[in-house]
């Protein structure tokens, strides 16, 4: 069941997106709303077809014996490497929020240290060196060479 939910989650989310789009453009005149409505109809049809196809494929396959679905989800997350991917997504969110709040230097330092640690790097000297090198290269490229502004927050 977890596998089926996993397979259907993406097309279902896209279908919800298409329907929400439809409710937001349905009252527009044809010159503004015709093409979006055509695309929504096409996308929704393809997604419904895809959802039915995925469900039928899942039904046709021999299903494994019943087991704890929560445990199965955790095993999928752990064994297929989704844990580091999930954590790196969270650190990327931090980089975005952190830069807005604390500025480039503090947010980047924390991002590099935490991301390298969760991805399995244990050599403190290497983490320190890479932090300095990465920040130096970014600063040199953006501020010195391209004359662009680095994000600033409460501190810098």
């Amino acid at each position, binding site marked *: 069941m977890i596998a089926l939910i996993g397979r259907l989650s993406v097309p279902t989310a*896209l279908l919800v997106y298409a329907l929400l789009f439809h409710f937001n453009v349905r009252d527009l005149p044809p010159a503004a709303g015709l*093409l979006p409505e055509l695309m929504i109809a096409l996308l929704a049809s393809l997604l419904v077809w895809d959802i039915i196809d995925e469900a039928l494929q899942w039904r046709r396959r021999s299903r494994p014996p019943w087991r704890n679905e929560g445990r199965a989800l955790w095993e999928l997350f752990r064994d297929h490497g989704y844990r580091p991917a999930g954590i790196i997504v969270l650190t990327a969110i931090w980089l*975005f929020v952190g*830069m807005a709040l604390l500025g480039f230097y503090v947010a980047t330092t924390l991002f590099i240290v935490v991301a390298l640690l969760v*991805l399995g790097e244990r050599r403190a000297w290497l983490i320190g060196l890479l932090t300095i090198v990465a920040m130096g290269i970014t600063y040199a490229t953006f501020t010195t060479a*391209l004359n662009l502004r680095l994000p600033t927050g409460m501190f810098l």
Partner: protein
Amino acid sequence: MIPFESIQLGAELLFTPTNMFYVLLGLLAGFVVGVLPGFGGANAAAVALPFTIGISIEGALLLMVGIYAGASFGGSIPAILLNVPGTAGAAATAIDGYPMTQMGKAELAIGVARMASTFGGTVAVLAVLVIITPMSQLAQTFGLRELFVVAMIGLALIAGVVGGENFKKGLISATLGLLVSMMSGSPITAHERWTLGFPQLYEGVPFIPALIGLFAYTQMFVLARQESFFEKAEELGAEGLPILERRGWRGSVSELWDGVRTTLSFPGHLVRGTALGTFIGAIPGVGAIVANFMSYGTAQRTSKHPERFGKGSPEGVIASETADNAVAAGTLVPTLTLGIPGSATAAVMLAAFWLHGIRPGPPIISEHTDVVYAVLLGLLVASLLILPLGIALGSVLAQITRVRPRFIVVFTLLLATVGAFGYRNSFFDVGLAFVFGVVGYAMRYGGYPIVPLVLALVLGPLAEQSLIRALSIGQFELLYLFESGTTQVLWVIFALVLVYLSISSRRARQGRGGGLLASPRARVTEQDEAAGRQGA
């Protein structure tokens, strides 16, 4: 027929120290990202895009073509040494390149790949230099309705070829891209269309953060799961990275000569590979994988020793690599003449045009002749530079695959985030890049290809404006879209493309061939079987 004046204008723009520096920089960056399996030229170009804000349009585009040419050759190095193609296009190179390495001929295989890449890239650019002006003149005869149909044909091809066995998922990705591109104010009536209250979206979804998200963020989320770039090689039984000999300048000259002599002893494969690569590259979305495997298959059929293919034949490497670099030149034809990107990297190049205020499309060659020809000549120079730089950096590039993916992930995420911010000094763009990154990752998890989404995002505004303006000319009568002779021919081509892709996709799923849509694995199996049959 050869447009010497235009070439001269392009040469004057290209041969300045600054612009040559951008070509060289792009080429070196392309080498590095090419040898890293799973990174690729399009990702590198997307990360580099915000860095080009502060430089000239020709500088930005020359950086991109350098990356394109460099990545095309760089991808062959891990394919030959580890049986892991650095780029999708190098998959055909691995079929014979890796057996050559197992036979102790790694240096020769890389030398042949280097010479074949140089030949393919150079001759293809020369061909494109001659044909691009007539192609542009033809494109300028296209009206709005023709442009709309051509965009639809391009998108259908991209959805079909990239979607492979699952054409439906490719179509979903392309349609989603078109829909997302319409989250803006209407270009005709200015009505707001679900911009979620963000004024930044009113002029359309900005390409740069979207491309950074879909390429750089998505790929880094995927790479974060990998402990090593060797994982696939280890699964396939590779024993480790072979050490390339460092032989001094005399050895390098001898190595260069070996590669050149072996490659030039198969002129038929060189010419056919270049012609196929240029032609297939010019068809939007079809790209390097198809061209390389078609060139490989043709070389095998025409070879005097087809039984040696798949067992370490230099002919296989020549055929694949010639087509691979010729594709880069071919993709520039629809990109520059119609504003329809021929590949993912070409889509990033189109975004660079928009970034610098130039709207790509049929008039671009007459309005920006110098820039267009400088870009083509830049690709020519980059292709020629592959030969000396490939020799100087061959063993260093091979070592780059030893770098742990985690360092690449962290550094690329940092550059992508700062790059997305630097585009307009806006945290909104960083958030948008992140959202697109998560969407891209989810789509890859669900088996939906990302490239059609990217190309649809780029093509969406062009397609919509062409359609609505054409309809308003025709008093909103749908029949107007079918009235001209050219449009009727184009609609027929569109229908044939859809039918062909649907049938091919179905056949590919059932394991009965599938033409352009057969998966690389199926192609390799077919090649092996063919070689086995001929050997027997």
